[in-house]
């Protein structure tokens, strides 16, 4: 029987060869470059010729006077984005799911996920203008008697501002997968709920949300891997010297130290550090999810 299986399916396996080859070539082979995190890398001597320095670069990074600020900022901004992004996407998907007019629904959906396709360089430029103290947003809130806020230039406002902007940009896109999950819920369950006299809110709470709970868990677990990804492009475009204290993140640090100062070993070390933390947390989250929700991703 085994042989017939192979005989039948071999074209599929053959088709897999190329993608697997590419994954090995582009995702695994470059991994050996990670060694430069433990070496004093000099391009002249190459990967293997450079001398070993152990954990020197990790120490250098941790001993940077601003490292703990940077780590904290990265963490706060990333967690803020994960929580806000998920919550808004779910609420938005729930609302959209209740709309029965198809044209209206599609229109709203298209408009809301459009910003996902724009680069931060563009959006950042627009928002820098809009968020000025004389900009349109401050004019709007000024109508309610609120004093102008210097969103991008004050340490209190910078982090909330970048989290909200990111949420605004991505919530429409994030809702797509939840909407797809909702279409998989058997309509008979809704009919039964209506027969039982459940209100709209009850139906959402007791039918829709449990129906997509496995997707929510999965996305939550996967997003834990992003716990130290605070969004390089966005921060690079929006941060400025006045908010270094709350706005500087690991990626901008790597950019300045690694690329601008050509400290390849140091930036590789920090990148590796990020990956190890992300991997650990993802595994942990998966473990917890398996334990408490009976749903495992891998």
């Amino acid at each position: 029987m085994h042989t017939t299986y192979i005989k039948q399916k071999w074209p599929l396996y053959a088709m897999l060869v190329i993608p697997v080859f590419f994954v090995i070539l582009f995702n695994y082979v470059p991994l050996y470059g990670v060694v430069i995190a433990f070496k004093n890398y000099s391009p002249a001597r190459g990967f293997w010729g450079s001398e070993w320095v152990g954990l020197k670069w990790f120490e250098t990074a941790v001993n940077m006077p601003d490292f703990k600020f940077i780590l904290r900022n990265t963490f706060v901004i990333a967690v803020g984005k994960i929580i806000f992004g998920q919550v808004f996407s779910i609420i938005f998907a729930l609302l959209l799911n209740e709309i029965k007019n198809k044209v209206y629904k599609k229109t709203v959906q298209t408009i809301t996920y459009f910003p996902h396709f724009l680069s931060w360089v563009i959006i950042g430029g627009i928002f820098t203008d809009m968020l000025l103290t004389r900009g349109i947003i401050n004019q709007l809130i000024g109508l309610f008697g609120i004093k102008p806020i210097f969103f991008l230039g004050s340490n209190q406002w910078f982090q909330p501002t970048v989290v909200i902007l990111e949420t605004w940009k991505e919530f429409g896109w994030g809702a797509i997968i939840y909407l797809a999950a909702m279409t998989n819920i058997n309509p008979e369950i809704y009919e039964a709920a209506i027969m039982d006299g459940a209100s709209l809110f009850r139906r959402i709470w007791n039918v829709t949300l449990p129906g997509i709970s496995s997707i929510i868990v999965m996305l939550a677990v996967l997003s834990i891997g992003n716990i130290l990804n605070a969004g390089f492009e966005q921060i690079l475009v929006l941060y400025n010297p006045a908010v270094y204290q709350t706005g500087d993140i690991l990626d901008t640090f790597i950019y300045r130290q690694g690329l601008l100062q050509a400290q390849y070993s140091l930036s590789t070390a920090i990148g590796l550090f990020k990956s190890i933390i992300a991997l650990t947390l993802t595994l942990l989250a998966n473990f917890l999810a398996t334990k408490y929700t009976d749903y495992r991703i891998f």
Partner: protein
Amino acid sequence: MKRKLISVASMLIAGSLLFSACGSDSGTTASETQSSSSGTGAQASGTSGEKSYFKKYDEPITLTTHAVVGADTMYQDGGTAENNAWTQWQKEHLGIIWKLKWVAPDGATDQQKLDLAFASGDLPDVISPTKEQLAKYVAEDQILPLNNLIEDYASPLIKWAIGEAKERTKGSLFLPFTKAGQIYGFPVMKELMDYYNTNFIRDDILNQMGVAVPKTLAEYENVLEKYHQQYPKGYGLGMDNTLSAQAIPMAAYKAYPKHWVKTGNGEIVYGSIQPEAREALVKLAEWYKKGYIDPEFAVKDNSKLQEDVVQGNILTYYGHWASIAAPFNGMWSKVAGSNVTCMPNLTGEDGKTGVMANPWFDGSRAITKACKNPEAVMYLLNENWDSFYRNYTDLREKMKNEYGYEFKYPVTEERKPLNVDQVARDYPGAAQPRQLWKYDYPADLEGCGFMNSFYTHYTVLFGFTGGPVSIANGALASMADAVNKNDTSVLIGEGKNMYAEWTNTNPKMLTTFASTYNYWSEFEKTDEFSADAFSGAATPTMTEKKQYLDKLELETYTRIIMGSLPITAFDEFVQNWKKNGGDQITKEVNEWAKGL
């Protein structure tokens, strides 16, 4: 004549020191022409004593290099980067064949490729590294020291020019490329004006307010206040998030942020942590509070600031001379009657000002140890300069009388380009694509120097990224001269076309430029103008810590100016700076200076 000579000197050093160049029909024909025109006869021209500074290789040799050629660059007569009129000329007349290991579309790519070539042990014979790259290659023993090469092969003309250039750069000509007394690279020079920024001020607004161009800090403050009252929408001091405009008040306090300063006892200290900078910061914070500076400058990069300038909302703008193209060209067409002029560097209470130039050189041309014929490079340089500066009669006289050096090439009538009206080239405000001039040069024209000036473009050819600047900026001096004298006949080289094009675009470009040039050419000679005391490649601690220290500095300065930190934060910053690597860097910089 003295003046003329100085400008020749500036052109000489402006010309990328190394061969942007070529050679001549070896010896005989050239010297025959020479004899008949100058009448020196007996001695072979271009020589002093027995020694010849020119050579044709009978058995052609090959030199390898690399080039930066923009994608929009067009070659006349269908040539390529490797094979064109210029290279053919060299092959034929000098026996030098150039091979390009790569052609990069821009400087950044070129640097990457150079590092790659270095990493794989495959550097070309002649390279154009930055000073950081060069230091790296020298440390790995890849680069040929040039001291003996210059001594043995350079013509008196070149040696004289090097001397002049050293003087004009206050001794720092070779410093970035020197290690333990050995010179490893020729600096790629630009016109000195490229190394400092000008204070531009709206003189139409000054006229309306009935005040003169301010010269002292007190006068300037007065102007700022008046401007603030009369133009509440505008900001007196145009500041962006790099804080470059802080230089305007800093000059009056003799503070040199971001520069290395030599103190009275010969020690080198970092300008940003000195008490003078603190005083200037207090002043800036006061101005910010009074509304002379945009409250949101911290989120505005230079392009946003330029938008404000174009709208006519900025009184003083601190920038490179090329600001006449952007933002001012935009402003002139947008704001009717607007005008800008150069504001002198402000003097403080003691009537003095202090301005420091950026380190002068970054790029270099170096010869690798693998090169089999390094002397060919010097022959090429000799040939090219002789040919290129042949029409400078003052210089000819001087070289003959003082150094016994006869030019190889005779004075020759300059030719006009054929297609001037269609030409667009590589300078601020030029339209794309770049295109070469077609020249009507006679078949019997001797030497490559003229070709060099016609095909300024080819100077880019071998990766000599200083490229066309060498010609264009010699031309800049002549343009200022032409405006001053109201006489276009003094224009030289590319200056003719730039002058015509600027006149077409907006004559204000010329007058504003001239006001800037006039000011700096005088100011440059005063003792109020100095050079950065450190011009070496980054020290080890700089590589490791500078990123953090720069961030700390920018953050502290920005927040002090914005008032979100009190001025006492400056003292804390100084302590932090010293503690977190600053002291070590200062030590390394002083060691560097001792090792010169």
